[in-house]
């Protein structure tokens, strides 16, 4: 029983961190109809940002997150203008491979600039653990989890409570109608993309004390994020959160029960199965897979 609780707790913590990435990815899909293959690269950049500010200036990631997130936001603005916006409305091959190309570019730019060395950041929380009801929790994980949750809540509040958020939702529902209502669709795209990748960057900073940092780190996580957003229904924000927590728990459980590698295989198989049987995911609207292109 203790063990089950421990696994669930670990899974929830990691799932919460994934949620921040997944919410952004699913938002970009829902609004722009683009699968952002480069999404996890922004997390990677956030991680490196945290690393350099920490190793050069001794800045704690929990502080530098407030510096790095706006920078990644601006980077998102540039990428949206130069790449993403130009691919919208073009054939599938353009939409898919533009961000895939960007992902290859960013990964290898990082590799060239910063080498393949594995780096890590240690903070006051590194290595320390606290115990709740017999369950041991990493302090770093818990702090990052809480921060991620705050970010996600802020995003949700923004989407549902502000005029701008409502404009974004209107575009997600029907871009033509939204345009007719006088909403500047292009600006909504720009804003959505930048906010979403900034969230990924923030997540990168927050996990810098937990995960090892290397140029291809995005790639090791992006597929898990794909699994999450598809399970939750591409385009569904609440779906992404629930699926992220679920995948976190499944990962932790499967990793313990059948070993990491085969556990990974198991959830890819589930992913494939979901795509085939219920491509709209568990929370997505039916028909999304048809009009999804």
């Amino acid at each position, binding site marked *: 029983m203790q063990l089950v609780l421990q696994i669930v707790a670990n899974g929830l913590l990691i799932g919460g961190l994934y949620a921040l990435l997944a919410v952004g990815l699913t938002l970009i899909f829902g609004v722009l109809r683009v*699968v952002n293959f480069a999404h996890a690269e922004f997390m990677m950049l956030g991680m490196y940002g945290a690393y350099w500010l920490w190793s050069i200036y001794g800045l704690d990631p929990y502080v530098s997150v407030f510096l790095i997130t706006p920078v990644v936001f601006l980077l998102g603005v540039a990428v949206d203008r130069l790449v993403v916006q130009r691919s919208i409305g073009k*054939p*599938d091959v353009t*939409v898919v*491979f533009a961000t895939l190309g960007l992902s290859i570019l960013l990964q290898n730019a990082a590799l060239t600039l910063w080498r393949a060395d594995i780096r890590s950041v240690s903070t006051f929380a590194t290595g320390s653990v606290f115990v709740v009801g017999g369950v041991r929790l990493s302090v770093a994980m818990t702090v990052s989890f809480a921060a991620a949750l705050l970010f996600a809540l802020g995003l949700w509040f923004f989407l549902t409570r502000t005029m701008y958020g409502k404009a974004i939702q209107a575009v997600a529902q029907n871009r033509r109608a939204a345009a007719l209502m006088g909403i500047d669709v292009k600006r909504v795209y720009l804003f959505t993309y930048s906010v979403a990748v900034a969230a990924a960057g923030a997540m990168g900073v927050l996990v810098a004390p937990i995960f090892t940092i290397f140029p291809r780190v995005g790639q090791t996580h992006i597929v898990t994020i794909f699994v999450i957003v598809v399970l939750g229904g591409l385009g569904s924000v609440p779906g992404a959160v629930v699926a992220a927590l679920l995948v976190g728990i499944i990962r932790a459980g499967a990793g313990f029960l059948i070993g990491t590698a*085969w556990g990974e295989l198991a959830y890819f198989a589930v992913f494939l199965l979901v795509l085939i049987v219920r491509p709209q995911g568990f929370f997505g609207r039916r028909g999304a897979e048809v009009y999804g292109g």
Partner: protein
Amino acid sequence: MRISDASPISPAGARIAAAAALVLLLCVPLVVRDIYRLDLGITVLIWASLATAWNISGGFAGGLSLGHAAFFGVGAYTSTLLFLRLGITPWIGIFAGAVLAAMLGALLGVITFRLKGPFFVLATLAFGIVVHIINVNWRGLTRGAAGLLLPFRGGPQNMLFLNLWAYWYTGLGLLVLTVGVSMGIERSRLGYYLVALREDEDAARSLGVRVVRSKVIAAAVSAALAACAGSVYAAFIQYIDPDSTTQFELSVQIALVAIVGGMGTTFGPVLGAAIVIPLGEMLRARLGGGAALVVYGFLLMVIVLTAPNGAIAGVRLLVRRLRRLIDSRRKADA
């Protein structure tokens, strides 16, 4: 059949050009003595075949696959394992690999034919990763990350040669096979069906085109040819491991080669390999692996954003201009 922009080359003209190119390629080992260049040439031939295979389902049928490395890997491992474990020559193993890949491809086709755009892409990506994970972890069969070494036993009857030129001709044979199949499909009933489905599935169905059958056949043929390329690759390099056969990056590069050259056309992917592979090699030598991939990523982005019809469209435009020029000269003379 004419696709995208009207081809300036008549089918007969294309055939003559292809025949001329083939004669030139046959002469290459007689002219090129430099081992390094010939080695690169063989790599280009294998990549050209692989991209051509991808193009049959990715280009003609429009199913952008990011899992084709799986089929390449199935080919490489099947022929290699049959040779290592049972002593069966890769000349036979290549067919076994093709059949196995065709079955896998058909299975993937059956389960994904309904999916559109990004959903199809993600499904093929997941499929590729599943195969890669199995490859890495089924150590009893594949020896996992340690890889498999092909011992040099028996020589030509086992697709193992001492001379590079022999590999060149093997690679060329592979290319002739894949391009031949691709041309055959392009000019066949199936070719018309695939392009019709790609352009508008509902309209195609309403005209009597059967979706599942057409897409599954295309997927199976595409997978089988990719597997053939895998078997030849294994015999050429004589060492295979998961990273060099089933990795996700490989799947991306297969699609990249076809797209840069021009997907949906028979010769686009071949042109793509002739451009991308030497360019990559040169960049790697000058700048190192990471920087080379930066250029790859940039190239991919720029091509899909500005010239989604690929390099072949440029070639066609050039041929058309040249023709017009010659025509106008002739008229002026007359």
